[in-house]
């Protein structure tokens, strides 16, 4: 891959923007929030984040999904943790979201709109919910 300039990046974005049609999901956005505290990083949250970005792109959901990092969600024993906020679905914190299970999460929760069993650990903790 040749070194890309900022101008080429800008053009790539413009080209891609024309190919994508944003789907309005009840006027709200889908958010995937990855826990990237020290505990998350040590358990492989960076690789999980990377896999989620790849899977979202592969399923053509890139324009609809916001992917964010946050600190520790208080579930260090099941890191890496991932919170999914999606209109029409319950907000869930998934645990043990390794690189391998991250793609499965995108397929089940975002594409098939069903929950990924055996990885549901919590709803958002009260102290990280914006009121």
């Amino acid at each position, binding site marked *: 891959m040749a070194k890309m300039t900022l101008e080429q*990046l800008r053009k790539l974005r413009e080209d891609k923007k024309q190919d994508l049609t944003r789907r309005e999901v009840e006027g709200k956005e889908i958010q995937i929030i990855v826990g990237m505290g*020290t505990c998350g*990083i040590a358990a492989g949250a960076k690789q999980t984040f990377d896999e989620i970005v790849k899977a979202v792109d592969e399923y053509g959901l890139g324009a609809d999904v*916001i992917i964010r990092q946050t600190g520790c969600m208080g579930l260090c024993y099941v890191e890496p943790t991932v919170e999914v906020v999606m209109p029409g679905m319950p907000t869930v914190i998934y645990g043990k979201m390794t690189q391998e299970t991250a793609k499965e999460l995108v397929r089940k929760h975002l594409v098939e709109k069903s929950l990924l069993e055996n990885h549901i650990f919590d709803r958002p903790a009260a102290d990280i919910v914006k009121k």
Partner: protein
Amino acid sequence: MHYALEDYVLDIAQNAVEAGAGLVGVEVDETDEAVSVAITDDGVGMTEEEVARALDPFYTDGKKHAKRKVGLGLPFLVQAARQAEGSFGIESRKGEGTRVSFSFPKGNVDAPPVGDLPGLFRSILCLPGAHEMTIRRTRTSKSGDLSYELSRKELAEALGGLERGDSLAMLRDFLVSQEEDETD
């Protein structure tokens, strides 16, 4: 415990952003013999006493995690640098900011691997907040040299933000391309 050098950098960059910095600078310089990193911020800074506490694994100010009794980010790094015969330094002034620097000799068996730098740079560029972050990366090697600088604000402007899935995928490709040798 952290595995790669990238994990330490992510940890310290997060600290810098959480310290209320308006500008965070990350430098990664590599030769065939060593890799050196410096993270500078203009955040709240620390007194000498606070710096000493930051290096104590059994101390945390409790701001990030109210019930946690340990703060392991910097102590992990100090221990790893000591084991690998590398170096570690921290300079801080209350109200002015902090600079953390460290280096590892690549030949030492205990030196951590550098890790995935494009992935690291994306993670730190996407840390939430209104701050600016600059990344300066150099590599001088028999196999080829490279040098580039990145600005969070410029990248966010080029991509229309740094949070959407498609922007993140394009950012990753862009960062991977920056690691191409200039001599190729």
